[in-house]
């Protein structure tokens, strides 16, 4: 009985997550369209609101193409793996659906799980046996691995203030008005840039440089498999916004309230706004940004905070 209720609860969570990802794509299309002085999707149903539902239905009922030269099993496994890793990261978030999972070292677990994302990209790029997919995968993997170092160090410098590996306690240990974002503004900006790069978002979406590589590591994917990769990408973006709201803006990781929603939505909108505003970065500039700027900055900040703790 307990097991069935847990199953139903987690299925509800996953369903809501998939829906939110769908509507996030709709918001993205709308924001981008208004930034470019045009109207976005406004035909389907009432004001184009059911557009993502129609898209999902289309994608999942499309015929799946079997690519002759691809490594069939790995090619099919990688989207599933990507989506399941995304869902596992979301299990860290204490919604009413998973009240029973109390994870003490949740930030540690987040670092561990998020580093697994690289493998799905690598697998999907390599297993489709296409030059463009492979090149896109190599770019994405190099970028993600490089930015993971600065991400870990930035998380560490936040943990040096909160002195805890728990998300909830990290948000509790922040001041009610002076959030982590305000007392460490430099680290906050570095964190946002790192998160943009970590989720392969624009202006760091070198993985899908449109002129050189058609669509990056997921060229060969169509229909439901593409939809799964897409859901994984956007779900991880939404999780990153929640994480930022918790670590930097004193968001609550345990209960859902209005201020938390406002924080998450502002951050999610920032991701779209950045995409609408900035041009894509050059690849060497991207790499030197993390290895020459962020690495030094984060090491300095970690050293500074360690000394601050010991004074």
């Amino acid at each position, binding site marked *: 009985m307990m097991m069935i209720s847990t199953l139903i609860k987690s299925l509800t969570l996953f369903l809501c997550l998939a829906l939110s990802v769908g509507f996030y794509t709709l918001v993205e299309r709308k924001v981008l369209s208004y930034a470019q002085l045009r109207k976005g999707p406004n035909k389907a149903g009432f004001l184009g609101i059911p557009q993502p539902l129609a898209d999902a239905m289309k994608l999942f009922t499309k015929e799946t193409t079997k690519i002759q030269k691809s490594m069939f099993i790995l090619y099919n496994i990688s989207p599933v793996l990507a989506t399941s890793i995304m869902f596992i990261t979301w299990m860290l978030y204490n919604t009413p659906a998973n009240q029973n999972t109390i994870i003490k070292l949740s930030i540690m677990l987040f670092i561990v799980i998020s580093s697994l994302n690289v493998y799905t990209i690598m697998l999907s790029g390599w297993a489709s046996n296409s030059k463009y997919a492979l090149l896109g995968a190599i770019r994405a993997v190099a970028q993600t691995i490089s930015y993971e170092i600065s991400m870990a160090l930035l998380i560490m410098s936040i943990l040096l*203030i909160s002195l805890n590996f728990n998300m909830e*306690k990290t948000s509790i*240990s922040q001041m009610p008005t002076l959030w982590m974002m305000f*007392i460490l503004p*430099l680290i906050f900006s570095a964190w946002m840039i790192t998160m943009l790069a970590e989720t392969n978002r624009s202006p760091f979406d070198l993985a899908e440089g449109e002129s050189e590589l058609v669509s990056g590591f997921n060229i060969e994917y169509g229909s439901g498999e593409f939809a799964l990769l897409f859901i994984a990408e956007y779900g991880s973006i939404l999780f990153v916004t929640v994480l930022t709201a918790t670590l930097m803006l004193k968001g609550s990781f345990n209960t859902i309230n209005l201020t938390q929603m406002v924080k998450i939505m502002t951050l999610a909108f920032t991701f779209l706004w950045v995409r609408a505003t900035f041009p894509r970065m050059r690849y060497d500039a991207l790499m030197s940004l993390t290895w020459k700027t962020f690495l030094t900055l984060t090491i300095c900040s970690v050293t500074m905070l360690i000394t601050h703790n010991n004074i």
Partner: protein
Amino acid sequence: MSSYHQDMPPKGGYAPFEYAKQYKPRWIKGKWVFLGFAVYTTIGLQLQKRYYYNYVTLPELENREANIALEPLLLAENNRLFLKQLVKNREDEKKIMKDVPGWVPGTFYGEPVFHQKGVYMKPSREEYYAHTDYDKGYYRHLMERHYH
């Protein structure tokens, strides 16, 4: 005699022309920005440290003190629950084995199960929960927390 004269460069020659990009003079110098940042961060970190001590460390210490103070009570409650369940088990055994001739609860045909050579052995977990209702999940959870 002509009314015009030859155009000549101004006395002392032309001024050197600007070919490089002209930057606006910065309204604040870099070192002042850095100093301001340092002061800001120091004050922020000090405030954060004070807040952390008052609202995280002190409550934690208080909770720990309270837990230490409550420890004997909790232990006693724990023991009481355990003993209550043992009594319940004995009653259940009596009720179940009442048709077996010569059966004494707590023994196996005259051989004591829980007192072996003068040493008391706790019942195993399976034995302890043998007569409880499995479906009463909450109750079971509570008891499992208090076992041992």
